C-alpha cells in the first residue's frame, strides 16, 4: 500500500519535472515572440496555466468539502484543505503575473474586468477559508466551517463573473494574439498547463499527506500524556 503510493508519487514527480523543464524550454526558447507585445507576452503561458490550476484547485475544494460534510471522513477534509492552500498560492501568482503582463499589453496594471475581478474575489474568499479554519475554536469545527465556506464561496464564482461582466460591458476584450493563436503557441500553452496541473496534484497530495501525519502525531502525543 505504502510502496505503491510512493511509486505513484515518484512517477508523478518525474513526470512533473520533465513537463516543467519542457514547459520552460518551450516558453523561453521554442515559441516565437508575439509581435505586438514583445517578450513580456511569454508570461501569458504561466499566467493562464496558473489561473486554470487555481480554478481547478477551488473546484476540488468544493467537491471534497461536500464529500466531507456527507461522510465526515477526515481524509476528504485534508484534500479539500490542501487544495485550497495550493489554490491560494497559485491565485496569488495569477494576481502578480496578470498586472505584469497587462501593463505592457494594455498599458495599465489593473482593470476591473470580469476575469481579474473574479480572481481577486476568489482569492479573498479562500483567504477567508484559510482564516476561518485557523481561527476556529476546535480543529473539528474548523473542518466543518472550512467545508461550508468552500461550498458557499465556490458557488459565488459564476455570479461574480456574470455580475462584473454586465457591470463592465466596456471591458477590453482580452487581446492575446493579434494574428490569432499559432500552433507552436498552442502547443506551449498545453504543455505548460499540463506541467502546472501535475505540480498541483503533487503539492495537494503532499499537503494532504502532511495533514494526516500531523493529526496522527497530535493524537499520539495526547495518548502518551493521557
Amino acid at each position, binding site marked *: 500500500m505504502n510502496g505503491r503510493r510512493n511509486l505513484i508519487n515518484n512517477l508523478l514527480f518525474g513526470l512533473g519535472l520533465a513537463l516543467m523543464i519542457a514547459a520552460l524550454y518551450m516558453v523561453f526558447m521554442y515559441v516565437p515572440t508575439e509581435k505586438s507585445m514583445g517578450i513580456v507576452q511569454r508570461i501569458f503561458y504561466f499566467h493562464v496555466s496558473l489561473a486554470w490550476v487555481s480554478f481547478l484547485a477551488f473546484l476540488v475544494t468544493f467537491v471534497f468539502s461536500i464529500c466531507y*460534510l456527507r461522510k465526515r471522513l477526515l481524509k476528504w477534509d485534508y484534500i479539500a484543505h490542501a487544495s485550497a492552500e495550493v489554490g491560494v498560492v497559485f491565485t496569488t501568482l495569477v494576481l502578480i503575473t496578470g498586472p505584469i503582463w497587462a501593463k505592457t499589453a494594455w498599458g495599465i496594471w489593473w482593470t476591473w474586468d470580469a476575469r481579474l*475581478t473574479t480572481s481577486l*474575489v476568489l482569492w*479573498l*474568499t479562500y*483567504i*477567508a477559508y484559510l*482564516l*476561518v479554519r485557523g*481561527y*476556529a*475554536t476546535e480543529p*473539528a*469545527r474548523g473542518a*466543518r*466551517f472550512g*467545508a*461550508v*465556506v468552500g*461550498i*458557499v*464561496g465556490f*458557488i*459565488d464564482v459564476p*455570479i*461574480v463573473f*456574470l*455580475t*462584473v461582466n*454586465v*457591470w463592465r460591458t466596456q471591458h477590453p476584450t482580452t487581446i492575446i494574439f493579434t494574428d490569432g493563436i499559432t500552433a507552436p503557441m498552442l502547443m506551449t500553452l498545453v504543455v505548460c498547463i499540463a506541467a502546472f496541473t501535475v505540480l498541483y496534484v503533487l503539492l495537494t497530495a503532499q499537503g494532504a499527506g502532511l495533514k494526516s501525519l500531523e493529526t496522527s502525531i497530535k493524537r499520539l502525543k495526547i495518548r502518551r500524556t493521557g
Partner: protein
Amino acid sequence: MSTFARIITIFWKDILTELRAREVVTSVLVFSLLVVVIFSFAFSTRIDTAELVAPGILWAALTFGGVLGFNHTFAVEKENSRLEGLMLCPVDRAVIYWGKLAGSFTFTMVVAIIITPIFLALFNLPLFLPRLLLVIGLASLGFAAVGTLFSAVAINTRARDIMLPVLFLPVVVPVVVAAVRATAVVLADKSWSDMLTWLQIMIAFDIVYLVVSTLVFDFVVEE
C-alpha cells in the same frame, strides 16, 4: 404550518428582545450614518458630483452597517448558551436559520429605510423613490441570507468580530455591485428596463444563497 409558526416564534422573540434592548438597530444606524458622513468627506462630495458617487456611498454604508448587525445575530444566542436551548428544540435546523434570517432581514430593512431618506436629503436628491425600496429589499435579503449563515460560523471562532466581515464581504460582492448600479438607475430616473438586469442578478443571488444556506446551516451548528 407548524414550521412556519415556529419561524415566526423565533422571529418574534428576536423582535421583542430588540425592542427591549435596542442593541442592533440603534448602533447600526449610527454607524451607517457615520460611514455616509466619512465617505462624503473622503470624496469631497459636491452637489454636482452627488449623483455620481451617491449610490456607492449609500451601499458602502449599508454593507458595513450590515456586517455590524449580523455580528449580533448569533452573538445574542451564544450568551447563556441559548443556541443550545434552540438546538434542543424538536425542529429542523433550517427553521432556526429561517427564524434568525427573518429577524436580521427586518433589522437590515429598518436601518436602510431610516438611513436612505436622510442620505437622500443630505445629497439634495429627490426623497420619494419607491423603486429604491425594491432595490433595498432585494439587497437586504441577499445580505441577510449570507450574513445569518456566516454569523453562526463567526461566533465559534476566535476574533469573531473580524471573521464575519472577512467571510461576508467577498461573497456579497455581486449584491453590492448590482445594488449600486440599480440605485444609480433610480437616482438618474431612468427606465425600469435599465435596471432589470441588476434586479435579476439580485433575485438570482437571493434564491441561490437562501437555498444553499438552508442546506449547509445544519453543518454549521451541529457539533
